[in-house]
């Protein structure tokens, strides 16, 4: 059976949340297989991460190199291609790093690529049957994948429960196998997102608006509702892309992580990148004109309505209280 690897993202000596989620995904993808954690990096941090992973994974491969000090996907790809057997099964998180690395890695390893896996249906070692979503979660698909020649599998963050740390794996230094790590893309620096004038991360109540608001002029009704409720206004990404609200108000993986008590999702479909920014198990109210919108699967309370009509009426009633 092919070897199974999970790539461990880490920063400042701390493994990413995905590190142990990938282990539980791997156990469903290849039941009974030993799963090896691969940690790339440079210096003392990488040892800290390797030791932490050895308490969960049965083996840990460490690839230590100056060129890997920052996880530039082009460089990491070379290190993996040089170190892993071509028919390996490699798991990555489907986040901004996994999207950068996974597709190209599958080409260089001449193996199959499965993007954004949300569940595993069945696996017999040669054919893997998984569940994916299309159209931002509006439809689910069963997908089969021929993994006999290896595979790169990007796993959606947050859907597999983190595996308990219950192993005593050995750390194996594979640094000597890393080979040529020259790349035509060079990492320069990280520019932090601007702080902005509002801080939605501290708000207890958020009135959050999505593309369902349809027009910039309609944003006003959202501000009115928030004011009546004593809430702060937040939004989904398309509203920021259109420059109708500032970036500091965006909830999601590429925006802010918020922990309100109450979250009002108005005309938001509920994509995983949006929901990924919502923590602390808030009470979610969703208003959407599409009764099948994925947001209704995660909301506590739903209203099927046109927000352009519903919001002003709700505001008026609250103001009357």
């Amino acid at each position: 059976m092919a070897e199974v690897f999970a790539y461990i993202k880490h920063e400042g000596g701390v493994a990413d949340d995905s590190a142990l989620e990938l282990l539980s995904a791997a156990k469903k993808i290849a039941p009974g297989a030993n799963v090896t954690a691969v940690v790339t990096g440079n210096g003392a941090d990488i040892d800290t991460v390797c030791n932490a992973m050895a308490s969960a994974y049965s083996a840990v491969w460490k690839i230590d190199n100056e060129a890997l000090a920052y996880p530039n996907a082009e460089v990491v790809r070379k290190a993996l291609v040089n170190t892993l057997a071509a028919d390996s099964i490699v798991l990555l998180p489907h986040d901004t790093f996994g999207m950068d690395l996974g597709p190209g890695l599958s080409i260089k390893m001449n193996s199959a690529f499965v993007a954004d896996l949300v569940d595993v249906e069945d696996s017999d070692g040669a054919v893997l049957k998984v569940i994916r979503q299309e159209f931002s979660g509006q439809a689910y698909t069963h997908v089969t994948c021929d993994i006999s020649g290896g595979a790169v599998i990007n796993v959606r963050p947050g859907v597999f429960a983190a595996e308990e740390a219950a192993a005593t794996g050995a750390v194996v230094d594979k640094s000597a196998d890393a080979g040529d790590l020259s790349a035509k893309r060079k990492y320069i620096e990280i520019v932090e997102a601007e702080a902005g004038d509002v801080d939605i991360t501290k708000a207890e109540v958020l009135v959050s608006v999505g593309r369902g608001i349809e027009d910039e002029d309609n944003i006003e009704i959202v501000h009115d509702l928030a004011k009546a409720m004593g809430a702060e206004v937040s939004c989904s990404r398309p509203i920021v892309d259109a420059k109708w609200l500032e970036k500091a108000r965006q909830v999601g993986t590429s925006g802010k992580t918020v922990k309100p008590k109450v979250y009002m999702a108005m005309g938001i479909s509920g994509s995983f990148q949006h929901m990924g920014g919502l923590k602390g198990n808030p009470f979610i109210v969703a208003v959407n004109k599409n009764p099948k919108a994925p947001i209704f699967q995660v909301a506590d309370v739903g209203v099927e309505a046109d927000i352009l009509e519903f919001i002003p009426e709700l505001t008026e009633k609250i103001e009357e209280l």
Partner: protein
Amino acid sequence: MEILVCVKRVPDTAENEIEINSDGNDIERDDLVYSVNEWDNYAVEEAIQIVDKVGGSVTVVTVGDDESEEVLRREMAMGAEKGILLSDDAFEGSDGKGIATALKAAVEKGSYDLIFTGAQADDGAAQVGGMLAAMLDYPYASLVNLIEPGDGKLKVGREIEGGNQEINEIELPCVLSIQTGINEPRYVGIRGIRKVASVEIPTLGASDLGLDAGSVGEGAAKVRRVDYFMPEMGEGAEMLEGSTEEIIDKLIELLKAKGGLK
């Protein structure tokens, strides 16, 4: 700078409710409104802006059927000079790798300094750009939200978690996948599309591209979609029913109880 932008025709999810057909092998496509993948409009706009600054031209390419020509014309109305349609029965049932294989062949028939894809399309896979780059042995950067042309290279910003930006230097030729928000795509009206209605768009099939039919399509696909389904919804949201007034009264009670009203 010669720039090739890959675009995909997709159902417009803002306009449609997606329904699964009775056989469960596809979505109901009859009444769907199609448009250009949202991300691809940003890619075309960025290409046009770069060419406006440094000269060159923009070509748009898609793998699709006859109906995909309309998305090429739409992007040409934005300002792309040329369009190329890659269409062949042999491409049907392609997985992401099959699509990238066809695009690679098209890239090799031209001479491009820079290739754009969208960050992701309707499958949410975010795969074609990275595959194409690896096949061409070009460097790649995904989720790009800043591009500054330099001499033989570019400074690019990638949008990463938390909206932080990872700055890289990348050598040309390269492939970049473009993230929304990098610019404000220009509006195209009916008139603009009419203007390019008669521009010739060449259609290339597998043999024109020098592709062995076995390297694309269903036969080559290691990843296969078996069916579409909707899972058992579990509990889901409690849907408030009744007149709007009744719904609002119930909602206000709930909000009070949960601390949503101050």
